[in-house]
């Protein structure tokens, strides 16, 4: 995925700073709790939510099962409508295709619709390296770009910033990229939005090339769909002469009728709205209306490998609504950056280690970045059982096993650094398989209870740094049961 995250430390280390950053904690808590409450209301308004959720799950699973067929259908339909389809196996190939397409137009600037796929492949950095400047036009994405920052949320990439911070970024950076911020800019939302509007308008009117992703691709007509709130996307999709859309292969829906389900579940789950303000659809090219050239880059980048995993493939149902981030107690405290990917939160914790593999320190730590509380599964509009996939990926990390990488079946070795834990788990399993040994251990703990330290050594220090240990009782239950004949002998 994006080069900006290369070399990230493991999740616990990355989360450590965020947990102790009170401003960040406050920003995240306020934002996630507000949207969480609104979403619950918006969902409660729909009487058939459970059925919509199930329908979304079924449609996505069906499409993924027959993805080979639908991909060919998409290519045929887009080509017939005057567009060109490109296939990209990985991030490098996708970046090369887009860079070459932009260069062929002779332009050195592009305007961008907020897109997770282009972030995933690090397209902006790749274009920059070739002398092409990419301008983000989504408000939150603009804040991240101007702040030389990284996104920390799928839907609201600048969720970790408050109004004061945004004002400072605008005042300091806008002039570097185009129209400067007005003199005396305050941190009122209306003033900030107006400053962004004026800054962006110049870019919309000047740009000859637009780059987007898509929320959905309708196979039967080759139509792409972008769902957004601000209208910047529609400007980028309709004003430039050339439009390049980079889309993950899992975004396909077979028919227009299928879209009906997701246009109900996506806005409610993501922005807590009944309907998003702008839904744009485009099919190939149309004479003298909209872009004269249209390119669709279909991106794999680990998706086919993910599809080969029976348990993990459900992550590809994701419609990037980010509801799981907003309810996740771990995301709320660790912040988005700790996940080391453009996909933070619970979905990122299962998506990144599948798309990228579990070899790196950060990717091997992500399956553990959850208390398995299940709030993410409960809220997911396509019923991705995130805890199930987390546990499955934990197994991959500690036990290794067969996975598919770049289309080939390979056997992974267990990740390093789990030897002591594995030994402890085996020892515990042995003791639990021998009730007598368990009992001996319990008795030993009870007899030595006055000698137990208040702080634990080794890995246990992580517990006793912030929490007291429970006192070990004088007698385990099973000894009491035997001594008193289950309490019948009257002894206490």
């Amino acid at each position, binding site marked *: 995925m994006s080069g900006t995250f290369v070399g990230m430390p493991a999740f*616990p280390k990355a989360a450590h700073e965020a947990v102790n950053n009170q401003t960040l904690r406050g920003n995240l808590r306020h934002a996630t709790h507000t949207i969480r409450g609104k979403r619950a209301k918006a969902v409660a308004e729909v009487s058939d939510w459970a059925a919509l959720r199930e329908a979304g799950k079924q449609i996505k699973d069906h499409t993924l099962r027959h993805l080979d067929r639908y991909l060919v259908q998409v290519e045929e339909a887009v080509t017939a409508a005057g567009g060109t389809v490109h296939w990209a196996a990985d991030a490098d190939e996708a970046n090369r295709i887009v860079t070459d397409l932009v260069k062929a137009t002779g332009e050195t600037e592009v305007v961008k619709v907020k897109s997770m796929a282009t972030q995933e492949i690090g397209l902006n950095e790749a274009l920059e390296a070739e002398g092409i400047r990419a301008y983000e036009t989504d408000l939150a994405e603009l804040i991240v770009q101007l702040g030389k920052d990284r996104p920390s949320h799928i839907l609201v990439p600048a969720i970790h910033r408050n109004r004061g911070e945004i004002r400072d970024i605008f005042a300091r950076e806008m002039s570097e990229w185009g129209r400067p911020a007005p003199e005396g800019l305050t941190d009122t939302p209306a003033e900030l939005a107006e400053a962004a509007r004026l800054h962006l308008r110049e870019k919309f009117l000047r740009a000859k090339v637009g780059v987007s992703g898509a929320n959905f691709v309708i196979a039967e007509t080759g139509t792409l769909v972008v769902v957004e709130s601000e209208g910047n996307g529609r400007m980028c999709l309709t004003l430039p002469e050339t439009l390049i859309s980079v889309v993950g292969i899992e975004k396909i829906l077979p028919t227009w009728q299928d879209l009906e389900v997701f246009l109900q579940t996506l806005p409610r789950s993501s922005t807590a709205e009944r309907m998003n303000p702008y839904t744009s659809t485009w099919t190939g090219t149309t004479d003298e209306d909209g872009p004269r050239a249209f390119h669709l880059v279909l991106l794999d980048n680990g998706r086919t490998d993910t599809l080969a995993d029976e348990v993990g493939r459900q992550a590809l149902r994701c419609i990037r609504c980010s509801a799981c981030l907003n309810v996740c107690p*771990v995301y709320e405290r660790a912040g988005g950056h700790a996940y080391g990917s453009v996909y933070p939160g619970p979905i990122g914790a299962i998506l990144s280690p599948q798309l990228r593999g579990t070899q790196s320190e950060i990717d091997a730590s992500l399956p553990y970045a959850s208390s398995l509380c299940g709030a993410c599964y409960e809220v997911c509009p396509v019923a991705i059982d995130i805890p199930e996939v987390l546990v499955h990926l934990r197994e*991959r990390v500690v036990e290794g096993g067969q996975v598919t990488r770049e289309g080939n079946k390979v056997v992974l070795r267990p990740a390093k650094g789990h030897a002591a834990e594995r030994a402890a788990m085996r020892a515990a399993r042995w003791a*639990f398989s021998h009730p007598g040994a368990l009992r001996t251990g319990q008795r030993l703990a009870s007899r030595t209870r006055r000698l137990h330290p208040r702080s634990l050594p080794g890995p246990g220090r992580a517990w006793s740094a*912030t*929490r007291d240990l429970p006192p*070990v009782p004088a007698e385990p239950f099973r000894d009491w*049961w035997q001594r008193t004949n289950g309490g019948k002998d009257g002894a206490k």
Partner: protein
Amino acid sequence: MRVALFLTCVNDTLYPDTGRAVVKLLTRLGVEVDFPMAQTCCGQAHYNTGYRHEAEPLARHFSDVFGEYEAIVTPSGSCGAMVRELYPRMGERARAEGRGDTLAATLAPVVPKTYELTEFLVDVLGVTDVGAYYPHKVTYHPTCHGLRGLGLGERPLRLLRAVKGLELAELPGADECCGFGGTFALKNADVSAAMGADKVRNAESTGAEVLCAADNSCLMHIGGTMTRLRTGMRPVHIAEILASTEEEPTA
């Protein structure tokens, strides 16, 4: 009715009072309780940390020990959810890996017979007033696996509301995880501690003396945080509240 008490390894070793309370409560309600001495652990810690193959023999052992009983009652939402939700999944995975139906067949009998305590009281015995007396202000934390895994819903609250002398205080952010999460508490100690501290502050804001839950492992984390933060609140397992009577009150 005769039931098997599955006390869980954590309760047996660290919280025997909870076990004694369950025995007292069920006996009072006319249920004959047996404690199979060969029981150990359901395998949840192994399974959830990624050691599924280490968890399998423990699940088999559980089925061997409890398979013959009419009903299995446990005072733990998370261990109850392990048996009910994850044992079938272990069986399916073994089948998908071409290891046949043996594991699934071994585990299947215990799955529908395993009940978390409050579920057993409300659904099987059909009681909500268990004749308890507990003159304290109490707030209830619905632990994640009980809430979302087993779907305990209002059952524990209905039981608590029927307790004489008990004043129930609503816990703000009740459905948010306390941050225990088994090995999560060690592997992501900073985040776990932050979640625990928030849970404790919410509990403190209710003015209750006692925070109760249906899982001692979550209570161990919450209670350890409470004493460290010097709140003066106490963690108490719901079984101990329900077992308390005017004649024999629980502290």
